[in-house]
């Protein structure tokens, strides 16, 4: 089990990062900042998938979770914020 415990140790590190980023994403109430944390969570999830020997899933999580989903959330936040502010100054 010499080389084995390094594999497990790295899995534990990735799992703890995923749990911490998930907690941070939920605790963060502001959607714009939550999108940032979700982007970080996507990258850490992709690393966990690599450590669990699933590169295809890691690629998909990288492309979808860290680029597409935060972009959609940011665009929605911008639309809702712009709609709220559009009464005073037209942008």
């Amino acid at each position, binding site marked *: 089990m010499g080389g084995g415990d390094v594999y497990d140790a790295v899995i534990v590190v990735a799992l703890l990062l995923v749990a911490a980023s998930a907690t941070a994403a939920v605790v963060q109430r502001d959607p714009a900042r939550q999108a940032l944390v979700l982007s970080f969570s996507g990258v850490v999830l992709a690393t966990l998938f690599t450590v669990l020997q699933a*590169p*295809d899933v*890691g*690629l*998909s999580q*990288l*492309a*979808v979770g860290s*680029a*597409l989903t935060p*972009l*959609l959330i940011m*665009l*929605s936040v*911008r*639309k809702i914020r*712009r*709609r709220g502010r*559009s*009464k005073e100054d*037209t*942008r």
Partner: protein
Amino acid sequence: MNRLRLWLLALGGAGLAALLVAACLDLPGFGGRRHPYGDRAVHASLARHTANTIASVNFDQRAYDTLGEMSILFAAVLGCAVLLRQARDEHRARPRPAEVARPVRRYALLALPVALVTGLYVIAHGQLSPGGGFQGGVVAATALHLLYLGADYSALERVRPLGVHEISDAVAVCAYVVLGLASVLAGTAFLANTLLPYGTFNTLSSGGSVPLLNAAVGMEVASAVVVLLAHFIDQAVEIEEEHRS
């Protein structure tokens, strides 16, 4: 959040947590040796000369499920297009062109072709190395939006005609179904991978119909994501409401 709802949430959560933890303790240990389905899937994939077993599972052994997933993607993009269309009481305001720093503009315009080629590479090598239609499609679509970052939205709209992407989205879904029907016409089952020769292992043309289905899914995901982002960016940047007096 009144007290009652908080208490209900706490109670329900604790019960669910207890049940889930009890279930986890009964699961077979993490990293166990027994993976009956996995071994059979790898065996079937190697029999069909497909190097990437996940692509073989996705496009050969479970091709019918991938058809279902593609229709979910198509229906969701259709739903977004309907929901985010420009309503009667809205008008399109041309956004002021953005001033972007020179190095950022150069990086975006330089990284655009590289990301596009990477996306196509990930799609093309779907049945060999890690990657596939889904991942490559999303990367190619995201790459196209680098132009929005480098220049501004009007530049992106000129380069990316929305009609073409909607049509290519529909064509790709039909291509997938037609490929399935082709094997029915040839006398075997729908979406069965028995029509084309399997080619030599670990080459671009190996795996029978897997690369074709992979390319169809790649094209569909790329155009679906472009249409999706187009409607979201339109809402966020261009469409504004009339100011009700």
